[in-house]
C-alpha cells in the first residue's frame, strides 16, 4: 500500500480575500506588559486630544478638522446633510395660482405598492373635463419612498425634490399628510397645460415667472 503513488497535492482554491499572514509573536509581545502600555498610550492620546481641544461641530463628520477626534453629531442641534443624490419626501406641485397641478387621475394611487395614497376627486361645475383632488392624502408611515408615483404621474403633479425626510410625530393621525401639508415648493407650468388654452388666461410661464415662448407651429388659436 505504501508503494502506491500519492495523489498530487491539491492546489488551494483561489480566494477573493487574502488574509494577512500571521507572524510569530515577538518576545516583548509575549511579555504582554509593553503591549499593554502601548495600548494605554493610544487611549491616552485620544483622551487628551478630545479633552483639551474643542470639537469641530461641522455636521459633515468626514471633513472635520483639528486635533479633536470626536465624530459625534449632536442630532437635534446638528443635522447631518443628506447626500446630493437624495431626493427626499414627495410634494404636490402647485400651479402658478396655488392650486395643485393634480387632476385626480388615480395613477399614483394605482401604482403605489404600499397603497399609501388616498384620493377623492372633485369636479369643477363649469368645466366638464378637468377634475381636481378634493382630498389627497399620503400615509407617511406606509410610504416606502420608492418614487413610482412620480414616474406614474402624467401631469408632473407629484415630485420628490424636497431633500428632507418625514418628520417624526408622537401619534399616527398627524402623520397622514393632506393637501395642506403636501402642497409646497415652487410652482411649475408647462406650455401644454390646459389652463393656458382657456379664455383670458395668463401667458405660459415657468416656475421662475419667466414667460415660455410659443412653439413655432403654435399659433394664436
Amino acid at each position, binding site marked *: 500500500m505504501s508503494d502506491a503513488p500519492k495523489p498530487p497535492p491539491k492546489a488551494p482554491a483561489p480566494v477573493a480575500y487574502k488574509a494577512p499572514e500571521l507572524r510569530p509573536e515577538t518576545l516583548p509581545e509575549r511579555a504582554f506588559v509593553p503591549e499593554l502600555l502601548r495600548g*494605554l498610550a493610544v487611549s491616552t492620546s485620544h483622551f487628551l486630544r478630545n479633552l483639551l481641544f474643542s470639537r469641530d461641530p461641522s455636521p459633515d463628520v468626514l471633513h*472635520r478638522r483639528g486635533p479633536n477626534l470626536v465624530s459625534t453629531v449632536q442630532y437635534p442641534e446638528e443635522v447631518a446633510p443628506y447626500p446630493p443624490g437624495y431626493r427626499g419626501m414627495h410634494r404636490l406641485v402647485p400651479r402658478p395660482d396655488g392650486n395643485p397641478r393634480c387632476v385626480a387621475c388615480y395613477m399614483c394611487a394605482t401604482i403605489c405598492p404600499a397603497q399609501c395614497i388616498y384620493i377623492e376627486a372633485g369636479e369643477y361645475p363649469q368645466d366638464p373635463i378637468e377634475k381636481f383632488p378634493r382630498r389627497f392624502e399620503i400615509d407617511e408611515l406606509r410610504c416606502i419612498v420608492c418614487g413610482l408615483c412620480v414616474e406614474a404621474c402624467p401631469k408632473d403633479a407629484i415630485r420628490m425634490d424636497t431633500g428632507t425626510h418625514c418628520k417624526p410625530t408622537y401619534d399616527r393621525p398627524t402623520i397622514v399628510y393632506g393637501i395642506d401639508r403636501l402642497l409646497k415648493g415652487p410652482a411649475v407650468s408647462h406650455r401644454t397645460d390646459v389652463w393656458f388654452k382657456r379664455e383670458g388666461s395668463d401667458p405660459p410661464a415657468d416656475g421662475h415667472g419667466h414667460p415660455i415662448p410659443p412653439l413655432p407651429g403654435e399659433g394664436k388659436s
Partner: protein
Amino acid sequence: MARLFRMLLLGVLIVLGLCAWAWLGYLAVNWLGGVTLGWGWGATLGQAVAAIVFIQLLFVMIVATLLTLAERKWSAAMQDRIGPNRARLPGLGRFSLGGIPHVLADALKMISKEDFLPSQSNRVLYHLAPVLNFAPIFCLFAIVPMGPPVPIRHGFAVLVATLQIANPDVGLLYVFAIASLAVYGVSLAGWASGNKLALLGGVRASSQMIAYEVALGLGLVGMMMTAGTLRLDQMVQTQSQGLFGLSWLPAWGIFVQPLGFLLFFAAAFAETKRTPFDLPEGESEIIGYFVEYSGMKFGMFMIAEFVEIVTLAAIVTAVFLGGWHLSPAIDGGLASFAAVLVRWRFGFAEPTGVLLTLAVMQTAIFAVKVLVLCWLQLAIRWTFPRFRYDQIQYLGWRILLPLGLANVFATGVCLLLDPSLSLLGAVGLAEIGVGIAALLWSGAKSTQPAPAPAHVGSH
C-alpha cells in the same frame, strides 16, 4: 484653543478647591480635637471625627460619586465620543455642566426603583450582602494619611492635627485584614440571591479575590522592608529623601520598588473587579453576583467599586508615589513659598502658619496624585481586554506570586548589602530601564510589518 484654556482653568480651580478643602479640614480637625479635649474625652476622638467628615464624606464619597460620571465621560473621550450630556438642570438652558446632572439623575433613579426581593433568596443575607461589601471597602481609607502632621498650640497643650482618621501601628496589615473581608459580601450576594448564575459569579469572585490576596500582600512586603515600618505616614516620610543624595530624584516607592508597584497595582486592580479582571461581574455578557440586586442595593455594589478605586489610588500614592512629597528640591521650594505667603499675610513668618500652609499645599498634592491614579485606573479599564478565567488564575498564582517572592528576596539582599536606599534605587531604576527598552523594542517590532490599509479615513 478656548477649550484648552477652559480645561486649564478648570484644573487650577480643582487644585484651589482641594487647597480650600484641606485648609478647612485642618482647621476642623484642630478645632474638634480641642473641643473633645476640653470635654475630657481626649483629642484623638474629635480629630478622628473631623477627619472622617472631611476625608471619608467630603473627599472619598464625592470623588467616588463623580467617578461614576467620569467613567462615562472619560471612556467617551477615549473612544472619540462625547458622553452623557443630555440631563440638564432647570433654569440653566443648554449648559450641560459636563454631565454632572447625570449623577443626580442616577441617584434619583436608584432610590426610586423597586426594591426587588427574589422569591428563592435568603432574606437576611440578601439584605446584608451589599452592606458587607460596602462597609469594609469604605473602612479601608481610615489609615491613609492625606496630609502631613501639623503641631498646633491649643491652650496649654500642643495638638498634632493631621488629615488621617486612625494611625495604628499595624498600618498596612489593617489594609490586608479589612480588604479580605469584602469577599464575604461578594460571595454572600451570589449565594443569597437564590440564583445559580449569581452563585457562579460569587464563586468566581471569591476565588479570584483569594488568589490575588497573596500577590497583594507580597507586592507591599518589599516596600515595608524598605521603609522598615508598617505605618503609612512613616512610609511617606521615608520617601521624602532624595535617591543617591540627589535633590531632584525622590526615593519614591515606584523608583526603589518598581516590581513591587506593578505587582501591587495588578493585584489590587483584580481586587476591585474591574475590566481586565471583571469576570465576577461581566456586566455585558456573563452574569455576575449582583444580578438579582436592584435599586440602591445595586448602587451600593457600584459605589463600593468606585470607593475602592479611590482607596487603591490613595494607598498607591502613599506607599509608592511619595504621598504628599514631590522631590526634596521642590519640597524645599514649597516650604519657602509657604513662608512667603504667610509673611505677606501676617507680616512675619509665623512657624505654625508656615507649617499649616505647607501642609495644605501638600495635601492638595496628595489629592491630585490620587485623582491622576483614579484616571489611570479608568484608562486601564477602558483599554485592556478581559482575561480568560484560567489566565486570571495563571497570572495570580504562577506569575505574580513567584515574582513577588523574588522581589522580596532581592529587596532583602539589597538592603542587607546597602542599608541606605542607593543599591535598591539602582536596581529599581535598572528594572525601569529594562521595561522602557522592552517597550521601545516592542514598538519598533510591531510597527514594522503593519500593512497599509486600502483607504484611510480622514482621522
